[in-house]
């Protein structure tokens, strides 16, 4: 095969074929290009050299290449992209060691790339195409033989070039990944028994998460009534085991009392609601204190402060005032500000110490309302006082991160695992949490029924206004063509069948009705006459969570009813039929 090639090379010698020229130039090249090489970093220079070398057309244009090249170092880069197809041929006869590298590539892949490159680089003459096909065949059959033979022939003293840039532009050839290398067959089951960090990377691999587009139907999620009804009839299969866990924990109550007595504070953690434990413990502590000197034999009772941190809106002030109510005599008027109140309390505790440390039982110290900035430090200052005993529970798994070393040493916590497996019935509003998690806040009003209930209690204008809003929103979602998705992505966008990337913010902002527009519509419909009355109507909707308002990218306020389009349609029907 090699022989054939060589012979043909000789045959062509008289014609001014590009290849011949190239060969000659290649011989000259080292000398001629020296200035160029000096100018550019070696590798790049070589690349340019090759680029120019391998582009017969450009060489033909400037026959006086030898003189010209030094003077025109410009536009070298552009040539890389201008590379015509022929260059592709060149790399095999040229015998640059590239081929050695590529020798193991399959023939199929090579021919594929060749075809691809030709189509990419535009039309070639038939002759060239034929030429190429010949060569292609040769390649496929004799690539290996060529590789060993070629370098001697051309004897271009070129160092190995990792890549022949004339072949193609930057980056891997399009489709080479898909066509060339057969994709690894991905196993349907994920690997098991990975170490935790590997598992993290496995699950976070790019494109790794392919989830289906299934959605939960609106009926399948339970509302409050249904949930409680279902839960009432439910019997936990592990009731006995949970009781046993509780019994285990309850054996430690006396120990905890001793620990509190020694000036430590206690923090309980672990899975499951720990309210029952704190409740039982409080009862035990109460009886324990009742048997002690200041209370024994008297009518006086010890006061234990209980704080439910999980209740939304619990503030440090609530805590401090409750503590204050236990230790301060009735006549005093403590300061209002939390910081001042705390100072006052600590001062009072130090100057007139109570007969025993004041026990504070705090459920869920890591609840969102108690996490905010000044609260933990104030709480720590309170807890660090020797006349305060704090027993608290923490539900989240990473609660120790809430405290730095300073706070931690102030709290003086002893930690106890108090896993109960009991449901967080009081701590969590299950239905509400799930709705929020699934972005169905519209269900908060209680769905269509809830809206009807609210609307019935409102004046006629309000119903009318709401109808306008719903209709506007519906028409917006219907009229917006899919092509204008960028400007006004339709409501259908929320179903995953269309584009995935629609952030909620954008959604609400774009699907909602502009505030101004709604106002004018309302005025036109004689729903209201002034913006004041309009606002007062809207306020009612806000308060019941029937509408949401957001600013879009332009800063325009938009209002929308937080329902999906099918629900909106039902709502519009109801409104139109005058059901409400």
């Amino acid at each position: 095969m090699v022989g054939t090639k060589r012979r043909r090379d000789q045959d062509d010698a008289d014609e001014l074929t590009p290849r011949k020229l190239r060969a000659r130039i290649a011989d000259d090249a080292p000398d001629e290009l020296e200035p160029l090489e000096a100018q550019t970093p070696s590798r790049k220079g070589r690349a340019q050299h090759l680029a120019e070398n391998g582009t017969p057309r450009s060489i033909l244009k400037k026959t006086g290449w030898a003189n010209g090249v030094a003077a025109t170092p410009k536009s070298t880069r552009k040539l890389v992209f201008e590379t015509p197809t022929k260059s592709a041929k060149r790399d095999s006869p040229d015998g640059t060691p590239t081929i050695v590298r590529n020798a193991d590539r399959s023939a199929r892949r090579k021919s594929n790339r060749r075809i691809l490159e030709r189509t990419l680089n535009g039309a070639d003459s038939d002759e060239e195409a034929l030429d190429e096909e010949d060569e292609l065949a040769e390649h496929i059959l004799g690539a290996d033989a060529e590789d060993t033979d070629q370098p001697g022939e051309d004897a271009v003293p070129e160092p190995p070039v990792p890549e022949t840039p004339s072949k193609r532009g930057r980056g891997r050839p399009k489709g080479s990944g898909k066509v060339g290398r057969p994709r690894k067959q991905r196993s349907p089951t994920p690997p098991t028994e990975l170490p935790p960090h590997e598992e993290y990377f496995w699950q976070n691999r790019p494109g790794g998460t392919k989830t289906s587009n299934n959605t939960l139907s609106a009926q399948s999620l339970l509302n409050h009534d249904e949930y409680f009804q279902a839960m009432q009839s439910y019997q936990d299969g592990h009731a006995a085991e949970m009781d046993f866990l509780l019994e285990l924990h309850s054996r430690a109550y006396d120990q905890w009392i001793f620990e509190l007595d020694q000036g430590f504070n206690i923090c309980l953690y672990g899975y499951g609601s720990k309210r029952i434990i704190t409740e039982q413990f409080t009862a035990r502590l109460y009886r324990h204190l009742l048997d002690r000197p200041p209370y024994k034999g008297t009518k006086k009772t010890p006061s234990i402060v209980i704080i439910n941190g999980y209740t939304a809106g619990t503030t440090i002030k609530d805590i401090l005032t409750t503590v204050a109510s236990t230790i301060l005599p009735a006549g005093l008027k403590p300061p209002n500000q939390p910081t001042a109140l705390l100072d006052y309390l600590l001062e009072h505790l130090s100057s007139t110490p109570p007969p025993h440390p004041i026990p504070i039982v705090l459920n869920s110290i890591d609840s969102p309302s108690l996490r905010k900035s000044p609260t933990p430090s104030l709480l720590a200052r309170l807890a660090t006082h020797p006349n305060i005993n704090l027993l608290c529970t923490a539900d989240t798994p990473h609660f120790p991160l809430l405290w730095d070393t300073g706070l931690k040493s102030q709290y003086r916590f002893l930690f106890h695992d108090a896993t109960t497996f009991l449901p967080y019935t009081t701590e969590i509003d299950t239905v509400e949490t799930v709705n929020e998690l699934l972005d169905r806040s519209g269900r908060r009003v209680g769905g269509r029924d809830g809206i009807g209930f609210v609307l019935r209690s409102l004046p006629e204008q309000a119903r009318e206004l709401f109808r306008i809003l719903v209709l506007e929103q519906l028409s917006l979602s219907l009229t917006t063509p899919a092509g204008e998705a960028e400007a006004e992505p339709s409501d259908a966008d929320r179903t995953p069948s269309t584009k995935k990337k629609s952030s909620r913010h954008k959604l609400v902002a774009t699907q909602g009705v502009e505030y101004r527009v709604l106002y004018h519509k309302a005025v036109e419909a004689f729903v209201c006459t002034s913006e004041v009355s309009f606002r007062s109507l809207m306020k009612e909707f806000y308060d019941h969570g029937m509408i949401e308002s957001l600013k879009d990218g332009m800063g325009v306020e938009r209002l929308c009813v937080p329902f999906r389009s099918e629900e909106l349609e039902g709502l519009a029907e109801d409104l139109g039929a005058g059901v409400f």
Partner: protein
Amino acid sequence: MEHQRCYIYQPPETEERANKRQRTSKFDPQSRLPERLQIYRSVWAQQEERIQNTLEGADSATQENIVNFISAASSSPDEQKFAIPTALIVAGPSIASHGHFFERLGRRVRDANSAYIVLTSGECPNLKTLLKNLIKKVTSRVEDDDEDEIDRPSTSSRHGPKLLNYDLGHVEEWQKKHRAASIVVALQDSEAFDAGLLVDTIDLFHSWLDRLPFVLLFGLATSAENFEERLAGNSLRFLEGQKFDVIQSDEIIEKLLHATVASTDVRLHIGSNLCRRMLDRQKDHVQSTQDFCDGLKYAYMSHFYASVPSLLLKEGITFSDVTADIFEAVRNLPSFRRWVEDTLDDGRAQDVRNLLEDNEYLFDQVSQHIQSGQQALLSLSHAASVLASIRQAIQMSPTVRLSSIWIRAASGELSGSPLIRETMLSIKKIPSDKLVHLLASLRELEGNYFSIDLASSQQRLDSLLKNTDTPLRTQHDVRNDSLRTTVVAQKVLLSKHKAALSEQDRAYSDIVTEFHDRLETYFASSLVDPRTLFLSEILMYDLKSPHTEVFQPKPRFAIERALASPHDYLGCDCCSGVDGNPAALSATQPATAIVYQMYLESGTLINVSDLWSAFNAIAGDGSDENEPKTMALFQRALAELKYLGLVKPSRKKTDHISKTMWKGL
């Protein structure tokens, strides 16, 4: 009640007090608890006193210096000052102990008739708040809400316009009344203050310096250079600084350890493992000294609370104090068994029989052994101190802290260790000038547990040294050796020769050798492995178990374990897998655990609809009428995961949630 935010506990009306204490089993582990706690209190009271003394003593010198600096700054009140006197207190990286330091400092500063205010970065986000806080703290005025302030007649309204509540005029007024020698403002964590705020504060204080005698204290965790870099040159010109180095917390810990754990006057010893653990925790988490003390206290508490035979540590205990339970407990101790076996090996079967059957005999033996065990442990601690002070006196390198020497001694590793050998070797070579030092420092440690006859050595040395000026050397000293090279038949022979010792040197060598031998026997006798002692469980507390969990909890691990393998906690038979396959999810597991385990397998984005169908397939029974119940469980599980912070809503796709935690990371 459960939805109320805060309330005072009220016992339920119908309370059956009958079932308060029903113990069916005969053995009551808490039977002698009050007495044990009594012992605990007396033992701990001693330790606490030592801790307090150590802490007070540790930084008293530094505090004294700072107080002197403050009083020097305020000594000439009429003199015009051009810069604010400033103390840069380099308190070290252990931020947790800064609070205590400034608190103690404050007590002393206030005694010197100065106003003392500590400001932390947390309460001073900007200049206005800083000033408000400052004024509030200086004038100790109880400030009410802003609304009230409008109505309240301001004190200065008579003299002119009402002052704003961040006007230092308030302080000036207060100063006129109280005539404090100086107003000391301590910025506890100066690194955390905004640099701009510091500059503003300094500028402002400087401009008031002619009216208010400010003294600034900066608490530094890094270095004074770093502090200077943060301030502009202009502000630096307003400060007249002096640097004070506070004793770093690890040195205080060392002292505390010496005073408490390695002390020769304790009734309950801390074991080497626990001690090492506590020190490591200190080092790894840069905790305050308070945490170390807490750890120690908890060890004492655990020992007396949980261990029944710890009652035997009571001073002057008599046979009638001890119940049969305690003897049973003693007979079950591992060290008792070892001892009995040893006794049997000695062929004293009758003694063993008595031990096992006769409580009175056992009591005698136990009280004897408690005495001797105490003695052994105390002399062990003392030997560690002796070794540490020997190394210190002859300045051996590397310096090994007492804590590590003690820990090695208490774990029985020290006897015959390289550390001892090395020390003994250098004692052999000790020149007389160093020996004088060494003897002097050892004299301080002389006592019941260290009864080498130092005095005679000292006497003989003194009489020897009277006649000589140069330090005497022993025969082992290398300087007395010389190498001699001889060429015999073209071969080089190296031979070591002792230089002829002078009369004095020889006498001195005798003293040193005698001293060395005595020390060696002393170390050999006192460096025992405390764990081999009979009753070591009573004399020493070295349990890892409650201590680690209580101080270094792993809440995340606990929750992940509870959810991933619920039977670890529940101990039920039903949840450990299906048909022998432990990996399979069984339907009997708690709903949250099922959902969590599916959650573990999923990617970052979870389709709730699919999750629900998977859950329904496992936990549901396929019938339609039970589906609401399954759904309710599913919703509850989902809500719990959200509550625990394991998932959060995702906006990427409808009905998807995203995963936020990976197990085991």
